[in-house]
């Protein structure tokens, strides 16, 4: 599939220049990050846990084949059915086949970034199956026919008045109502019915344990649990990087995940499923590759497979907070998304590694210590190596490099530039052709550079 080219600055403009939207979005996410800081501070071994998490994940990815087989064996022994999907299409087919076998018409689904990545909803709907996203945020974006703008807070870009309007249209709430309590209650009632009618429950997976064959699903709303404890069939879809070796390793990840994600000490429900509910029920686990084994082969970007999808890098990213998740045009936005998206299609997503000031906040916040900002920098090198940097930029960098290798020329060019800035009228140097000056003044140019001053004042020869 050919993807359109995403130009992040252009895609971000309407959001970031909207004074009602961008500062509001920024504050909401900063609030989440502040809660995360408070939680992390409360755990004196925080940095040690990050180190452990990073080592466990790196070890797992290195030995992934062994752990996948171990997991399959253990899960099968417990009575679960394990499926393998090489790509999104195969994943969707596997799910559809299970649903067809049960003559399913309605499914309830809890949050799963993997099924978003695979486009499962539309696929199933096109095959005549009603799909109900039961996470409140996901339900909101589903009713609005949008996509999540954040992996943990899917509707973070939507205002309560807009939710009110959507619920008024679809759920019949009062017109103009925007109280979150009222709207949440309305969604609760509406989704209760859907839960009771759901014939199959689909969930994502936060962790899969190779040693025991179990899976762990974390939610705050209880929607995953409600969704899979009523129907007899549970389908759990997971990327193969969700594996961890031992049951005990969960202790490290359950301490980090919710604290990093939403600033809670743990998610409200941390559910452990080991095999189907009873002999009459089924548990299907779909292991999805969809580019992950290829990413594993890439030594530069392999660490990004360690991601536990906590969303903390989004909450902390000053660019994400101001430009909104949709400006990335990807299932996973923000810093980790800007690392992952170009691994799928470098050309389409070539602007994302540049949508970053290299502040490094994401790297310090990431609970599994992915060196995110260094990976974004590495991507830039990769893109230049593949000839994907616009010629104009490459030429100006060549020119700069040439200048920096010739100190005399550099001094002369500097002098000319400063003189021009001083003598030319303001409008000639501050116009639309100069991106710097759209919002800012240029520095007032001094008559003398430091090197000139130094020559006059300190050089004896």
């Amino acid at each position, binding site marked *: 599939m050919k993807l359109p080219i995403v130009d*992040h*600055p252009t895609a*971000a*403009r309407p959001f*970031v220049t909207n004074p009602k939207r*961008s500062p509001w979005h920024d504050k909401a996410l900063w609030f989440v990050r502040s809660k995360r800081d408070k939680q*992390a*501070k409360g755990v*004196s071994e925080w*940095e040690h846990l990050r180190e452990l998490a990073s080592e466990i994940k790196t070890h797992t990815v290195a030995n992934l084949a062994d752990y996948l087989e171990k997991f399959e064996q253990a899960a099968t022994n417990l009575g679960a059915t394990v499926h393998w999907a090489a790509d999104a299409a195969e994943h969707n087919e596997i799910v559809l086949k299970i649903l067809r076998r049960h003559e399913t018409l309605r499914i309830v689904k809890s949050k799963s970034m993997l099924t978003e990545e695979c486009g499962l909803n539309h696929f199933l709907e096109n095959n005549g199956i009603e799909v109900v996203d039961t996470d409140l945020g996901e339900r909101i974006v589903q009713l609005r026919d949008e996509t999540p703008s954040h992996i943990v807070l899917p509707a973070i870009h939507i205002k309560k008045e807009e939710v009110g309007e959507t619920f008024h249209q679809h759920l019949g709430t009062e017109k103009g109502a925007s109280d979150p309590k009222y709207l949440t209650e309305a969604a609760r009632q509406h989704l209760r019915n859907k839960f009771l009618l759901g014939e199959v429950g689909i969930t994502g997976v936060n962790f899969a344990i190779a040693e025991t064959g179990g899976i762990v699903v974390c939610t705050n709303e209880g929607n995953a649990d409600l969704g899979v404890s009523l129907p007899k069939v549970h389908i759990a879809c997971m990327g193969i990087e969700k594996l961890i070796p031992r049951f005990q390793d969960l202790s490290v990840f359950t301490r980090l995940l919710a604290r990093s994600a939403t600033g809670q000490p743990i998610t409200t429900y941390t559910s452990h499923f080991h095999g189907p509910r009873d002999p009459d029920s089924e548990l299907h686990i779909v292991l999805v590759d969809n580019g992950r084994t290829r990413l594993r082969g890439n030594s530069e970007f392999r660490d990004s497979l360690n991601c536990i999808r906590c969303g903390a890098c989004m909450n902390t990213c*000053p*660019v994400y907070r*101001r*430009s909104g998740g949709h400006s990335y045009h990807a299932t996973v936005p923000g810093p980790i998304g800007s690392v992952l998206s170009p691994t799928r299609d470098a050309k389409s997503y070539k602007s994302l590694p*540049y*949508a970053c*000031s*290299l*502040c*490094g*906040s994401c*790297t310090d916040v990431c609970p599994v210590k992915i060196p995110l900002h260094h990976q974004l*920098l590495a*991507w*830039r*090198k*990769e*893109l*230049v190596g593949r000839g994907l*940097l616009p010629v104009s930029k490459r030429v100006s*960098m*060549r020119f*700069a*490099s040439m*200048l*920096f*290798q010739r*100190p005399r020329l*550099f001094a002369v060019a500097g002098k000319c*530039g*400063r003189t021009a800035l001083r003598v030319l009228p*303001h*409008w000639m140097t*501050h116009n639309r052709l100069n991106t*710097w*000056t*759209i*919002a*800012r*003044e240029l*520095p*007032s140019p*001094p008559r*003398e*550079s*430091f*090197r000139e*001053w*130094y020559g006059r004042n*300190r050089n004896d020869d």
Partner: protein
Amino acid sequence: MPVALFVPCYIDQFYPDVAVATLELLERLGLDVVFPEAQTCCGQPMANTGCASETAPVARRMVEIFADYDAVICPSGSCTAMIRHHYAEYFTEDATQYEKVASRTFELCEYLHDVLQVERLNVRFPHRVSLHQSCHGLRELRLGGSSESMTPRVDKVREILELVEGIEWCTPERSDECCGFGGTFAVNEPDVSAAMGRDRIADHLATGSHVIASADMSCLMHLQGLIRREEQPISVMHVAQILVGRPVTRPAVPSNPSEAIR
């Protein structure tokens, strides 16, 4: 043996007083300082764009220029980080000279704090000051503790500024959020960059601060550009200027602001 002064290209050209202040400060502290005139730029603009082959010759000549000094002192966290953490790939064949330079290149405050262990400065700066932490100083050089990290660290820039008498400290709500400069980011993503800068300025203004101080002039160049365009009542100063007791410079209003095209 003299120490070398490494002056980032934009400071050389646009903010010579920052370099002069740095030089004066080090001289006052009794050091023999030279400015090797063959230096130009550390190569960060090219490196951060991903242009490795354009960066390599610049990096190599920088290392050669500074190879023979016991210490290289730079009034910028960002450019120091470039040399210390991002040069290695250009010296894969013989890294000895590079390693020597990397281990002896210091950001100014870091040098004052760790090497000279300065305890007195005899300067006054009776103003309301708020500190802008540069991301590279903080998260690459670890000049202080970043708010994300739970590893306790000494804030070296702040500790050095504490030696100045008369400062009334103002603390912004977001202690270390990025200002949005980011080198070429400022022109690649002009809208986001400006939004980030404006938010920082508003945060500093809200504290009642009169001077935003930073150890990185590049952040301040960006903030100053916004401050002057929007005529905000706050100044920016490099830490070196404060440490030698320069007076506060009022933000100069653009020569003809009405002509500024928005």
